[in-house]
């Protein structure tokens, strides 16, 4: 199977700031490829370069084997992070405008079908400014997927969505993927990345620092994480020998072991301090890996 996107040694700078630095990656066709990374790490710039909105200063971007060189293609659907809709236009004419702009043909049928599918049919003739935020997000999503792109680029598709709307969009994305569409999405939600993405790429300060499936990424770190639930909670974990970091998740805590630390020894020490109700040794979560690379401040900024 060919690669949907091939980025080779791409660099993009804005003035003195290098947003993307010698980045290379490939996105297999038909996969869901997730970009993670702190704010300002270069995810959006990379996505804009794939969409030909930005041109790389160096290197090359190929989409389905072709170098884009600034051309627009109906093969690509793009949902920007900042939502842009004509507030004074009615929903359906606006979506038809966007669809025809992308494809060069009338897309009324596709628009009607998507409006029905996302339960927006009765809002078709309403002005965009009368929609709720969740509905506007769905409309924006429809604008990206009409008319049937082969590559769908979604910059923070779940940002600001309520759980019900997020589920609807997620389900639609996975349906598109089943239909052979390649999806590139960026997300701040590590759980979404873990559950939806076939491959995950972390960009940090313009450079790729992780790339692969979740399992292959976790394998790089080994079973160095303990998830524990104890009657005295986090306070009994202070100064635990062999433990580098404790992450308090409320009802459970996540411990990161130092290299060479024996989990059995940790368990014995814990039992001596309190009653342990659950103890499991596992690979680190994507969130933990993210924090290890970007630092706790970046994680806090992400979740803010």
């Amino acid at each position, binding site marked *: 199977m060919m690669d949907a996107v091939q980025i080779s040694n791409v660099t993009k700078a804005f003035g003195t700031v290098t947003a993307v630095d010698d980045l290379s990656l490939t996105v297999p066709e038909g996969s869901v490829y997730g970009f993670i990374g702190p704010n300002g790490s270069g995810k959006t710039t990379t996505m804009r370069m794939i969409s030909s909105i*930005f041109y790389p200063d160096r290197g090359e971007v190929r989409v389905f084997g072709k170098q884009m060189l600034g051309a*627009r293609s109906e093969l690509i659907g793009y949902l*920007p992070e900042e*939502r*842009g*809709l004509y*507030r004074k236009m009615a929903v359906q004419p606006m979506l038809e*405008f966007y669809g025809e*702009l992308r494809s060069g043909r009338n897309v009324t049928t596709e628009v009607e079908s998507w409006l029905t599918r996302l339960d927006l049919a009765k809002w078709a003739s309403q002005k965009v400014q009368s929609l709720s935020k969740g509905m506007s997000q769905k409309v924006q999503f429809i604008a990206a997927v009409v008319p049937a792109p082969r590559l769908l680029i979604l910059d923070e598709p779940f940002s600001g969505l309520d759980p019900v709307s997020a589920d609807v969009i997620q389900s639609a994305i996975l349906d598109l993927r089943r239909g052979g569409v390649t999806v590139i999405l960026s997300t701040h939600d590590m759980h979404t990345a873990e559950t939806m993405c076939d491959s995950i790429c972390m960009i940090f300060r313009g450079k790729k620092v992780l790339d692969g499936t979740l399992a292959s990424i976790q394998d790089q770190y080994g079973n160095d994480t303990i998830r524990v639930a104890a009657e005295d909670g986090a306070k009994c974990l202070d100064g635990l020998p062999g433990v580098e970091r404790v992450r308090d998740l409320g009802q459970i805590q996540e411990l990161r072991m130092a290299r060479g630390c024996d989990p059995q020894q940790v368990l014995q020490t814990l039992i001596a301090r309190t009653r342990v109700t659950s103890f499991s040794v596992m690979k680190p979560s994507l969130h933990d890996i993210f924090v290890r690379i970007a630092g706790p401040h970046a994680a806090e900024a992400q979740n803010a």
Partner: protein
Amino acid sequence: MHKGLHRILLIAKRDYLATIRTKAFIIGLVVAPILFGGGFLGIALIQSKPDIKERHVAIIDRTGVLAAAVIQAAEEKNAKDLFDKTSHRQVQPRYVFETVPPAPDPKLQRLALSERVRHEQLFAFIEIGPAALDAAPPSTNDKDSKPGPVATYTNAGGFDEASRWLGDAIDEGVQRVRLARLGVDPRLVPDVLSDVKVDRFGLVSRDLKTGEIHEAGKKNEIAEFGVPFGIMLLLGMIVMIGASPMLSAVTEDKAQRLVEMLLGMATPFELMMGKVLGALGTSLTSSAFYIIGGTLALSGMGLSGLVPFAVFPWFYVYLIADVTFLCSLAAALGSGCSSPQEAQQLAIVLLAPVMIPYFLIAFVMQQPNGAISTVLSLFPPFTPMLMLLRQAMPGGGVPVWQPWVGLMGVLAFTLLMVTAAARIFRVAILMQGRAPKVADLVRWAVRG
């Protein structure tokens, strides 16, 4: 159709329909000519309500013989000018004179009369000096505050018609006394001094086919001044209707994050050109409204001969070029702004190519084929307005080559502006936060 062209036309259609369906556009279509022509309406309104309150004027006559002649001349002018000949409505104030004997201290007398003017007992006073009857009275320097042979004193504004009116009456009175002293029968003086009517004609021509000589047509003030001025005013107004909203429209699209969405589907050049064409469509719609409306109105009044059909093709060529380059400039400037407030500060740049020619109207109309008028009308940003003004003047005699050279310049300038604007637009449109400096804009325009 080429995909890029299709996208340009699609964006143009959306922007065009979005604009002409707004109440602001429809109201603007009616209000704009009122605003632009408001000055003339105001003048007409003021002229229809003249100040006709009686004006009392005192005369100190140090010659002993002139006051009576001046008063007689003034009374005759009162009788002649006071009422409109057709409506019989009073259109001027009546001037009422009183003679004041000269006092021994002229300074004190002037002060006393000035006080009467301040207290509105008098409108003005006239002091006729002893040298007023001299054949060649000593000339007075305007910078010299000492009064000449005859002086009027008033606190009326500088543009008050009264100064001219009183001046004419004094002039006529003095001339009558001088002529009487030379032995001319006083009864003949009004005829001697009556104005000679001078009619203005164009040129006589010969019909090349028949050899017949055609008499010159009488020059018409409306055709001479009103038509060229009106058509230039119309061009400027329509250009501004099309171009001025572009600045804020681009900034709003940017602020509402529409731009990134659109740039995922169209190139920056396609997006900008689509917007420019949309604005051009708006201008052409406005122009059709005014041109058709104006032509029908003039025809209805039996004045279809005043419609300058010959310059309409030029009007539209200049309109298209002017709107295209101003909209491109507006798009480029708007793309660099982060808020509509920022964009407003740049509006003056857009107004300049329309407003500066307005300030030059009087100069160009006085010397339509002078060297400076020619150079100014060949300067591309001003060509549409000034060349059109010159071309619309009947018998203006603009050499045939000039409009074509001007047009070449305008088209080249427009192409240059569109290219530079597209480069700036591409770089600036996705920038947020810091507003670009002039140096940035120049660098982007040159290098892209």
